[in-house]
């Protein structure tokens, strides 16, 4: 983060170049992103992203917490896709512990992660369209997002900071009518996607603002670490859900949308199809939801049920021990990758055999994708910058951590 307003290598600007300071307080930067843009008239010559305004030292804080206490912090990193964060961290620690997760918990995790992806994509669509001037879509997408947040609230008690997944499974069984509510939501959701599509896909202003803008070739995308929908919109066929499955994703049948358009429009199309595929995954999860427990059989790691804790002495002892002393995790290092709404997320957890993680590092997709901004915008008009930022779907919380 640069504190001073000056820009060292941009002070000696020849000719007609000027520097435009965009952000950190700017409605189209989706948070507190500051872009120092060198422009020649209206043409972008150079972009330098300045980040760190939201840096809260989460990685450092994790080192001072028990393993289970890290979960609430993961929600706050990417607050638009909270359950994916929870899942990735839990999977990493479970890998270190060698824990076997019950099938029902894995399936509920898939169901909720896909709802979380829908949540993330809905916000992307609403804000992206709003940046370009189509304000109505924002109101429509937030209507459906509200329903998803209610579904999160029903399982987790929280709308955004869910912390619902626990090391070893879920915090508790979902409420009785929960799956019916999800069913009712996804039954009507495809029509809602059609509704957004009707507003945008044929809209000449939207098309003109998006088509041929923000070109990112497949080679550049790979070299710059771009992942997720922007990578697939550049024609690279990779999705960790299918290619390196976790949490039972191998049992689900879904397509991975690819586009060779390489532009902002292609990213729009890929994400719209992804939303439809997510609905299919959720439907499969509802249809085939297995029975059984939602927590692993590991009394020294997973908190006991309230009922057991009140009636069995061992359960009470375990409960007390886990809460006050945490649980030791065998020494080692693991990297767990997964596909969240924005792209490939990864948790690198290093354990030294104690109850607190020695080091937790998070790889978040927006951090790498932001590096591609200059390549996508160079030589284009300054107005295109807003469209491109919207299309790479960045969240500053996950960039700065």
């Amino acid at each position, binding site marked *: 983060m640069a504190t001073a307003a000056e820009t060292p290598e941009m002070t000696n600007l020849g000719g007609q170049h000027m520097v435009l300071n965009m952000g950190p307080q700017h409605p189209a930067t989706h948070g507190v992103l500051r872009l120092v843009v060198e422009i020649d008239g209206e043409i972008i010559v150079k972009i330098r992203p300045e980040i760190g305004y939201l*840096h809260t030292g989460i990685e450092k804080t994790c080192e001072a917490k028990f393993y289970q206490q890290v979960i609430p912090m993961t929600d706050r990193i990417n607050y638009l896709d909270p359950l994916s964060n929870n899942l990735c961290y839990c999977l990493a620690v479970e890998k270190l512990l060698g824990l076997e997760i019950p099938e029902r918990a894995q399936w509920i995790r898939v169901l909720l992660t896909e709802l979380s992806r829908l949540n993330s994509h809905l916000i992307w669509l609403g804000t992206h369209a709003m940046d370009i001037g189509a304000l109505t879509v924002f109101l429509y997408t937030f209507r459906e997002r509200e329903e998803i947040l209610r579904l999160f609230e029903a399982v987790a008690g929280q709308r955004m900071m869910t912390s619902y997944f626990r090391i070893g499974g879920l915090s508790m069984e979902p409420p009785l009518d929960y799956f019916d509510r999800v069913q009712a939501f996804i039954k009507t959701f495809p029509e809602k996607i059609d509704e957004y599509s009707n507003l945008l896909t044929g809209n000449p202003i939207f098309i003109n603002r998006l088509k041929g803008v923000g070109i990112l070739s497949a080679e550049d995308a790979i070299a710059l670490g771009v992942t997720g929908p922007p990578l697939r919109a550049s024609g690279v066929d990779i999705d960790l859900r299918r290619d390196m499955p976790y949490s039972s994703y191998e049992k689900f049948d879904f397509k991975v949308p690819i586009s060779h358009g390489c532009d902002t429009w292609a990213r729009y199309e890929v994400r719209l199809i992804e939303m439809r595929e997510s609905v299919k995954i959720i439907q499969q999860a509802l249809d085939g939801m297995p029975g059984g427990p939602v927590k692993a059989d590991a009394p020294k790691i997973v908190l006991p049920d309230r009922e057991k804790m009140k009636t069995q002495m061992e359960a009470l002892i375990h409960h007390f021990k886990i809460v006050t002393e945490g649980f030791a995790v065998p020494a080692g290092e693991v990297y767990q990758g997964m596909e969240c709404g924005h792209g490939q997320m990864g948790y690198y957890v290093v354990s030294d055999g104690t109850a607190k993680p020695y080091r937790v590092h998070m790889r978040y997709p927006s951090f790498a994708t932001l590096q591609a901004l200059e390549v996508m915008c160079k030589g284009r008009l300054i107005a295109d910058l807003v469209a491109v930022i919207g299309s790479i779907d960045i969240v500053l919380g996950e960039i700065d951590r």
Partner: protein
Amino acid sequence: MTSTAHIGRQAVLDALPDHPAVKAILSWNDAALTDARFEFGELTLTVPREVIRTASETMRQAGFNFFEDMTAVDWYPATPRFQLSYHLLSHSFKERIRLRVLLGEAEAAIDSITSVWPAANFYEREVFDLFGIHFDGHPDLRRIMMPDDWKGHPLRKDYPVEGLR
């Protein structure tokens, strides 16, 4: 859940002689593989710090085409103090490997791999900022998270989580 662990260079060479990353590194420079480990289904290859750029290039050509993540671990007060972990993903093999480099405190500097993957730019800046490890040949090595005039490197273990530093 995960396959059996193989700890140590020889154990990995015996168990995974056909692994593309192992084959590539041995055919390039046998001495560059100082240690190896296969644990939790993840392969870790330790290389000396002098060769990191060539090792990355070798891995890239061996099919591990995608730079996914890079970070450091501070093992203070143990020596060597720092460990750098590079996570590389192969789009063709659908597999991930970890390159590991150990750095002493006195020589906390390493070649930048931005010439192999420009994606490493922000990651190296982050490690420079939060750990104080220098990257030679980096195009724009400045602090990224902390203010420019910040003193100290917050993710070092001798930097307190709260209170005076």
